[in-house]
């Protein structure tokens, strides 16, 4: 099997989305933040229309390259790690922004979320899924982004020199190795070329822009969603092992690309 360059894939963002049978109380989510986050929140905001209020808590992690966000709306909860746009991250804004090597950031995410699953107040989860976006820097060349993408896709050929507006989306269901019992995971991948505008981004955060900073940069991007059908409610132990299995799938795609699917039994 042709392996992709593992070190090439950085994590653009990752989020765990959980749905509960009942909406968690604000006092409970405050406790969650304290348990999970190593830092105090630097902002708490309530957003959204009255009929669908959202509450967001965010904090910059000590590495100063990633922020942790906790979002709650009705019975849905999102934990996310996302890149920071600030003068301190100026070097990263010269590319399509990312938080760091895929494996390392996923390990960090897992170490944080494990604390949440071990919280005694955690109610039963109806459903959970993980979203992640992997990016590989391609500089100023869209064709280079396609060349990076090509070895990731085992079942399609890309004309890397004469293509643009490339999109490939596929769902590769896989039986759960940890839950068994006919539980299947959806592993939905969407591959495309992402762009960023470094000059604009640097200027926005108040950093002077050198003449050699390009107007537009490209990155091979794989946006992933890994989840299960509604099979809940599940307890926190089963949810945690499922969450780790989701992360395993994401790391596997970063390591070996999108493989051929296996038919359901």
């Amino acid at each position, binding site marked *: 099997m042709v392996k992709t360059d593992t070190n090439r894939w950085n994590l*653009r*963002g990752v989020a765990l*989305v959980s749905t509960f049978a009942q909406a968690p109380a604000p006092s409970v989510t405050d406790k969650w933040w304290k348990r999970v986050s190593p830092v105090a929140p*630097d*902002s*708490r*905001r309530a*957003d959204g229309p009255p009929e669908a209020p959202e509450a*967001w808590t965010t904090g910059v992690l000590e590495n100063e390259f990633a*922020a942790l*966000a906790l*979002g709650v*709306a009705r019975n*849905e909860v*999102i934990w*996310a790690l*996302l*890149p*920071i*746009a*600030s*003068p301190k991250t100026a070097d990263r804004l010269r590319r*399509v*922004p990312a938080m760091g090597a895929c494996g390392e950031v996923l390990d960090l995410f897992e170490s944080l979320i494990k604390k949440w699953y071990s919280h005694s107040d955690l109610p039963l989860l109806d459903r959970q*899924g993980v*979203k992640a976006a992997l990016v590989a820097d391609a500089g100023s060349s869209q064709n280079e982004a396609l060349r990076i993408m090509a070895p990731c896709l085992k*079942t*399609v*050929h*890309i004309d890397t020199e004469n*293509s643009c*507006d*490339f*999109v*490939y*989306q*596929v*769902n590769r*269901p896989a039986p759960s190795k940890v839950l068994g019992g006919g539980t*299947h995971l*959806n592993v*939905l991948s969407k591959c*495309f*070329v*992402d*762009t*960023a*505008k470094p000059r*604009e*981004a640097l200027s*926005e*955060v*108040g950093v002077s822009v050198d003449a050699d900073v390009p107007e537009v940069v490209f990155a091979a991007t794989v*946006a992933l*969603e890994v*989840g*299960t*059908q509604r099979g809940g409610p599940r307890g926190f132990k089963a949810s945690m092992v499922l969450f780790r299995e989701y992360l395993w799938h994401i790391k596997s795609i970063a390591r070996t690309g999108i493989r051929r699917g296996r*038919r*359901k039994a």
Partner: protein
Amino acid sequence: MTPVTTPRRQEGCVAPLTLEAEDPSQPGFGTTFDGAADTWHVTVKGGRVVTSTKRGFSQGSSLPLPGLYVPADVENRQKFRRLAEDWYANRPSVSSRVRDMCMHDSYQKIIGMGRAALPFVFEELKKGPDHWFPALHYITEENPVPAEDAGILDRMAKAWLEWGARNGYC
């Protein structure tokens, strides 16, 4: 070369969470996506989650997925920059009364930012004296300019910059 096509979903697959295209009228911070864009665009600005109300981040989901996090101080800088540029470009001419210049909408909004605007006002003042003194006065409720220097822009700027340094703003 084989043309790229999206394979049909396999029979029997359960419904996946859906990746949806981002609303192009609400681009995320510093990035633009092509036609394949997804919801990673949605931006957290200064702790506020900027979302598209038209599209959720996944099927059956009411929450959008956050994109980039812009700390509050960076967001304030962006806001100040926008307002200051507007004031420079559209304020009454320098021959007008100072009061008229300071009644400009963007100038008033800078005053409305309160102390969060002070570091940026002092940055502007370092570049060269301009009529930032009313804003500084209204925000800080101070006036470090000696009476004999009133109206002399260079000396007023010097007095305010010294005040700013003493109080940790520059």
